[in-house]
């Protein structure tokens, strides 16, 4: 029943239609690269040069050495020296500094006397993330400083030490986290936006009647429409991946073939979902809006792209299990950063197969009903 000729005829028609619509072409080819460059450059979580105001009431060689070890770490930058506690408060309130380091008088005496020498770090907690990271750096710096002071010429050792090594992304650069995840987010947006239009357009323009009058089978329509979009999607992933590697220096350690296969499955699912929405709503404006809500928001928020799923409340953790982008991001990170193969990604591979099947089944199902009406 199915004819390859008709399938390719539909695909060719769709491609010609796309090619002659400048808006779709921009969406298909310029937007992904723009998004990658924009997000890739604008978003970085690498905290450097945290603005610190210092109140040094000890004014000794040790206190200066401590301040120096804060600066030398590269994480802090001293923007001002306060002369009183209220100066420190002022700097925090008006945002001139994110942290205030207070070294009380008697710091040196306490250090040489062997009692713990207290210092105080006041943080602007209104930016909780930066403050948490600043606190971590500050603890690490003071721990290092104490070790140096304590161990200097004595036989003391720190009783328990965690020797940490960071795998996959040794410098913990946020760019290496963002770029592979971004590919999944961009593909969710593009796939949904492109296909959300495809069937709704036929309805709005009245060409659906014409399509219904031809001998073309609904499977041929769905697959014929999918082919050009799949091609565009794969092309986009290749371009964004290469741009990510060349421009942002993100490592690529795994197999191109695995990434290609997984991407194909993910795109089939996302495109099918977009077509389902388009065929169900029959309005381009509505379809784009719904597609954005259904694909973009979960891909951004519930995929682990930026925000760790483990830290979310249990309801959102449960919802995240049905977010396809979550599995696809595990694939892109696995292939880019970890260099793992299918043996580590079979859960994701299985999810991709399920997603592709469901997406296409939905598209075919929705299309069937409408033409019969």
């Amino acid at each position, binding site marked *: 029943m199915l004819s390859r000729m008709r399938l390719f005829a539909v695909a060719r028609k769709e491609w010609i239609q796309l090619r002659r619509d400048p808006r779709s072409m921009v969406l298909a080819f310029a937007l992904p690269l723009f998004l990658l460059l924009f997000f890739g450059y604008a978003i970085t979580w690498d905290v450097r040069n945290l603005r610190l105001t210092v109140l040094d009431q000890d004014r000794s060689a040790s206190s200066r050495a401590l301040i120096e070890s804060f600066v030398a770490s590269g994480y802090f930058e001293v923007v001002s020296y306060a002369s009183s506690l209220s100066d420190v408060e002022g700097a925090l309130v008006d945002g001139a500094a994110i942290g205030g380091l207070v070294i009380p008088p008697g710091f040196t005496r306490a250090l040489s006397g062997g009692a713990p020498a207290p210092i105080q770090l006041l943080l602007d907690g209104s930016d909780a993330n930066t403050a948490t990271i600043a606190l971590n750096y500050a603890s690490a710096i003071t721990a290092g400083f104490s070790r140096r002071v304590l161990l200097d010429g004595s036989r003391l050792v720190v009783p*328990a030490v965690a020797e*940490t090594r960071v795998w996959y*992304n040794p410098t913990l650069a946020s760019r290496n986290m963002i770029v592979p995840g971004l590919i999944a987010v961009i593909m969710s947006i593009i796939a949904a936006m492109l296909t959300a239009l495809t069937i709704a357009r036929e309805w709005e323009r009245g060409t659906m009647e014409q399509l219904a009058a031809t001998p073309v089978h609904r499977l041929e329509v769905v697959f014929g429409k999918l082919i050009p979009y799949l091609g565009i999607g794969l092309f986009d992933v290749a371009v964004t991946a290469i741009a990510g590697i060349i421009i942002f220096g993100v490592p690529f350690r795994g197999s191109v073939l695995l990434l290609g296969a997984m991407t194909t499955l993910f795109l089939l699912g996302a495109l099918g979902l977009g077509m389902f929405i388009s065929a169900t709503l029959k309005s381009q*404006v509505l379809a784009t809006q719904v597609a954005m809500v259904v694909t973009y928001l979960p891909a951004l928020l519930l995929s682990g792209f930026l925000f760790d799923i*483990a830290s979310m409340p249990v309801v959102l953790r449960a919802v995240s299990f049905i977010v396809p982008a979550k599995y696809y991001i595990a694939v892109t990170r696995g292939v880019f950063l970890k260099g793992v193969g299918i043996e580590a990604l079979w859960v994701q591979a299985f999810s991709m197969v399920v997603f592709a099947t469901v997406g296409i089944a939905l598209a075919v199902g929705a299309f069937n009903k409408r033409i019969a009406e």
Partner: protein
Amino acid sequence: MNASLGRIRALVRKEMRQIFRDPKTKRIVFASPIIQLLLFGYAVTTDVHNVSLFVVDHDHTAESRALVNALTAPGYFRVIGVSDRSGDIGRALDRGSATIGLEIPAGFTRDLAAARGAHVQVIVDGTNSNTGTVAQGYLTRIVQQFGVDYLAAHGTVIRGGVDLRARAWFNPDLQSKVYNVPAVIGILLMLMSLLLTALAVVRERELGTLEQLLVSPVTPGELMLGKTIPVALIALIDLVLICAVAILWFGIPLRGSVPLLLIASAVYVLASLGLGLLISTVSKTQQEAFMGMFLLFMPAVVLSGFMYPIHTMPLFFQYLTMLNPVRHFLEIVRGIFLKGDGVAELWPQLGILAVMAVVVLAAATRRFRQSIG
């Protein structure tokens, strides 16, 4: 003058009817902001909890178990697997089932008791740089403290060193929701204003009702006011709704002045819906207006300091954020909510927003005059 007021009132009534007769719009206007506030409030979290930990314990002692317990008790870590083979850590990290691998070597307790410096090996998955950084910090601190506590309990008190006492202002527990939820208010106000206005003019044009309005005695300025006032009112109702959820459900403190929050929000809403109207007058179809809105809204969110900190962006993007009304409004809401800031601190942002509102609304009206002339 009176006649003009009467015409504006009639227009406002017409718009209100149009908005509220459509049940779909009603849902978009009142239910979706609350749902989105809940979603963003919970999902956008940079807190690090429940980090998955894989433990390989070669020591098998009460002490090694106590160490694992010290890691899991505060809720930062959660053990997802235990084994005797070191190789299992690599597999768990590769598959992504664990974020951190902890290996406690045989002789850990012996070294600990002898105060020789007991070492544990830690491997951190760096693919999520934020989780990696924060979890590494927690882990290092907990292990060190465990050692000190152990020796203290067995009579050897480690003295000296530097004791860092941190105190976070405005948000003592450094919860990211306290930082994020007020920001979501700003994002949602912008989204509502854009959604309701971006399609407003272009819809009348597509439906052909613009012609009808133009033959009536209504002037372009009145028409703009008629489109603006209802949306501004709805946005302010939304503001009250979302703030109520933020305060009552999320427990976000509102430390500043409520009237100031209302005034600042009104100015911000005017600027946002001016942008929406501008898009609407420039676009030829609703579809185009929606795309325009998306392309404006997404960068505005990225460059607002909501999910991505501004101070880590490259300088060029930091300057670009100055043109973004969302950025200025977020400083205002966060200031009012968390710091209790008043006009004395926030007048620059208020001034910038007011100028933006005037410029954008004037541009939209001018553009509308041109497009019908």
